[in-house]
């Protein structure tokens, strides 16, 4: 039959129909064990050792710890409330009504999440304080010497709220896109007014998203380091993450045990928040039945300009004004000088880009870390996503649980766990990673695994499995079909994963604040240290550069959005 050579038919005993190479499952499991489970073991071990030896047990009864717990709970809860209010307003408006410019609104609203928290905090400080160049220029600055209103629990809560509102927005929008137009239309035909439809149909359907968003905002607030570090430390307000930071700075015999216990406290508070969410979500499984194509659309009628104006005003307040203040501070020649055409100066940029070796080193470090993490994580996330979508049963669920661990844990807890894991020299090799850039890199791998996995996972989920099956029947073995069929198809999502990880890793502060040492500082650490040492103009200039980088990378993603699988870009529907 034909001139085509037949494929050699040789049975291979035990060959699994899934037929990936034998090392693949062990490789993925080993990576996930190292990144997800091992740090947790070390944390538990160090905390336990601290308790047993009695050297660290004191930290649990100190008044400073109680104050930090109280402050953490207050700021995280306050931040959650602010996030829910702003996030819900934007999500409902963008997902359900006919406001104009939805894509731009979403994009702008997502920016605060992408801008590193310490930059947000700096920008707000520059905006509101008595030395604010913006307020001085406008002539409405409070007199010098009056207190900075943001250096307070309320200030920290407000900024946590602004920083994490996009998380509520995302969770709610995902839930709302599941509230189908036909459901709303059916209710309208049944005689319900738009208000009743909102109350009876949309609000109940969106409650799971709202609850999930609130929980994420709370957990993120508990683990946030950048905002309380900038706003709280000058005012003597400690939260748990900053307490860990100061304890680590004043290193002592019981420090490892102490930070292990303190970060366990954070983990416990975060877990309690997530459990509360589970409880609130109980019995709220509103999976969509039937077609869920188009989103519901309420016509706002005459109120549309009002709503649009409100949204723009909020964006102005939380995004434009602080960033403008940041830019203004970076352009004044000295602290407290008003900005005008005579005083404007690029000295700060010159300083950080050409004079200060520290900032250049930090820039180099962050670029190296972000690039390595973004590219290296693909080697884990692509095989993991492949296995999780192709296999069912225990393997997929084990992988899923392992990946959830670093995702659910606040970054500060993870950073502490990595300190504890790698403080001692590595067994056999006798090399210590502690104090080198490599410990930061491994911690980044762990922190951003979920960020890298999500786009790749959605690409695999949206890929018809028969595409791979067709390649198998065509005779292609595992690597052949990986190269010819699967990798080309997940490439756009992998590209998005690279940019997203790069974006977040390049600006990261929480993990590197704990893990850096001389010569391994990152951009986030550099900004924090510049501000800490009083060079707020230099900190502002560096922050402006960081924001520009964020916007450029997000715009680059937006430009290639149509080649990406759905759900990769958080600000798109």
């Amino acid at each position, binding site marked *: 039959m034909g001139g*085509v050579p037949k494929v050699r*038919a040789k049975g291979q*005993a035990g060959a*699994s129909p899934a037929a990936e190479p034998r090392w693949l499952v062990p490789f993925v499991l080993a990576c996930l064990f190292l990144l997800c489970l091992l740090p947790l073991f070390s944390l538990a071990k160090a905390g336990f050792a601290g308790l047993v030896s009695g050297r660290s047990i004191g930290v649990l009864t100190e008044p400073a710890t109680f104050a930090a717990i109280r402050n953490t709970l207050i700021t995280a809860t306050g931040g959650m409330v602010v996030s829910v209010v702003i996030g819900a307003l934007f999500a409902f408006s963008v997902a359900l009504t006919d406001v104009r410019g939805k894509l731009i609104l979403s994009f702008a609203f997502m920016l605060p999440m992408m801008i590193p928290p310490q930059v947000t905090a700096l920008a707000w400080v520059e905006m509101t304080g008595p030395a604010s160049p913006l307020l001085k220029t406008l002539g409405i600055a409070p007199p010098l010497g009056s207190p900075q209103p943001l250096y307070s629990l309320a200030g920290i809560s407000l900024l946590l709220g602004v920083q994490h509102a996009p998380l509520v927005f995302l969770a709610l929008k995902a839930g709302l896109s599941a509230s189908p137009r036909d459901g709303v239309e059916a209710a309208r035909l049944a005689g319900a007014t738009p208000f009743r439809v909102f109350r009876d149909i949309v609000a109940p359907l969106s409650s799971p998203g709202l609850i999930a968003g609130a929980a994420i905002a709370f957990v993120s607030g508990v683990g946030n380091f950048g905002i309380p570090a900038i706003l709280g430390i000058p005012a003597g307000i400690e939260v748990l993450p900053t307490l860990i930071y100061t304890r680590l700075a004043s290193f002592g015999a019981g420090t490892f045990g102490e930070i292990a216990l303190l970060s366990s406290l954070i983990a416990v508070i975060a877990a309690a928040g997530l459990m509360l969410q589970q409880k609130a979500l109980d019995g709220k499984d509103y999976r969509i039945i039937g077609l869920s194509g188009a989103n519901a659309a309420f016509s706002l009628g005459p109120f549309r300009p009002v709503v649009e104006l409100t949204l723009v005003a909020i964006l102005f307040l939380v995004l434009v004004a602080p960033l403008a203040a940041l830019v203004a501070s970076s352009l004044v020649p000295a602290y407290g000088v008003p900005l005008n055409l005579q005083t404007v100066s690029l000295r700060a940029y010159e300083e950080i880009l050409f004079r200060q070796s520290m900032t250049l080193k930090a820039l180099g470090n962050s670029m190296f870390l972000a690039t390595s993490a973004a590219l290296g994580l693909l080697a884990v996330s692509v095989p993991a996503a492949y296995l999780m979508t192709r296999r069912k049963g225990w393997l997929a669920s084990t992988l899923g649980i392992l990946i959830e661990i670093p995702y659910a844990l606040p970054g500060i807890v993870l950073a502490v766990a990595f300190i504890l894991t790698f403080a001692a020299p590595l067994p056999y090799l006798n090399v210590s990673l502690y104090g080198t850039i490599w410990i930061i890199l491994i911690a980044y791998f762990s922190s951003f695994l979920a960020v890298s996995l999500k786009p790749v996972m959605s690409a695999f989920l949206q890929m018809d499995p*028969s*595409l791979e099956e067709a390649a*198998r029947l065509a005779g*292609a073995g595992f690597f052949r079909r990986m190269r010819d069929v699967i990798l080309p198809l997940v490439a756009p999502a992998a590209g998005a994963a690279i940019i997203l990880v790069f974006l977040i890793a390049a600006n990261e502060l929480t993990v590197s604040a704990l893990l850096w040492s001389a010569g391994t500082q990152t951009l986030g650490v550099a900004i924090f240290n510049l501000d800490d040492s009083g060079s707020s103009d230099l900190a502002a200039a560096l922050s402006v550069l960081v924001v520009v980088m964020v916007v450029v990378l997000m715009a680059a993603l937006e430009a290639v959005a149509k080649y990406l699988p759905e759900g990769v870009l958080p600000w798109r529907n």
Partner: protein
Amino acid sequence: MAQLILNHLTKHFGGGRPAVSDLSLTVREGGFLALLGPSGCGKTTVLRMIAGFERPSDGSIDFGERRLSDASLALPPERRNMAMVFQSYALWPHMTVAENVGYPLKVRGISGSAWQRSVGDALVLVKLTDYADRRPAALSGGQRQRVALARCLVTWPDVVLLDEPLANLDQHLRKSMEETFRIFHERSGATMIYVTHDQAEAMALATDVAVMHEGRLMQMAPPAEIYARPEGAVVGGLIGRGSVLRLALPEGAPRALEWSTLRATLGGIGMDGAGSGTIRDVPTGDVRIRDVLVRPEHVRRDGEGMALRVLSCVFEGERFALTLALPDGQALKAYGDSAIRPGETARFVVSQGWQL
């Protein structure tokens, strides 16, 4: 070429009844088997086990002398020399039509002019030569279907599997694709296995039809045979549009029933139907209640027949589909040339029946 033998094939996915249960059949060399059954009956699982995507829980699959799968061994799909047309077509969106079709050759290390020639031949057969450089996204549903078929054809596979390949096409395209499949089968000589829930497709294409129900094989026979002599109420109800009647038949009655027997039994059950005057010559021996299949084309209007009340009458274009009430209330389907108003009675003869 060789026979494809499925031997006591069973597949459990865990929980409940097995997806496929103790299924044995042999597809003759170069045969065209249609696997027919309602959705969820396990037919796609059988296909995927033949392809090697699923491993049987028990039983075996052999191709001639060659063991393809059993519970402990599975030859991976890439070494079975099979091809498949997927329901979703499974065209690779990043390759052109020619690259899609030629991929199995490329994997086998064939390139250059041999590759060009084989791909060209395959595209000629499915009439897509002009579309060679397009991407699948730029094709219509029917064209994509033909690309998928050409991809199957290009390596001269031993077995071609088709998983509801026409399910996503409109009525008109289906007819022309059926024709293409038939030509393809004649030319290639490959054993073909065709999964469908559409009995018209199965009848039109296959040399053998296997009916599955709840994971079990109910009957396998050539189309005409399975239509005329179905086994059991499931196959009888599934194939064609016949009515399955519960009738009292004398012991020893033949399976193929004639009008004389039917007349007696149709009138003999139940109460006095209108005009069922002459019937009381039922044999006095053992009488059993049996399932009897009556095809609507065997029920025709005839002045000699029984008077039956018309329950409904639907115009179907080429004819009228009637539902008639038997004296005991059972419904009987019939075809007619003219409309009869529901509620009226007319005389009908049932020329054939088949004991299931």
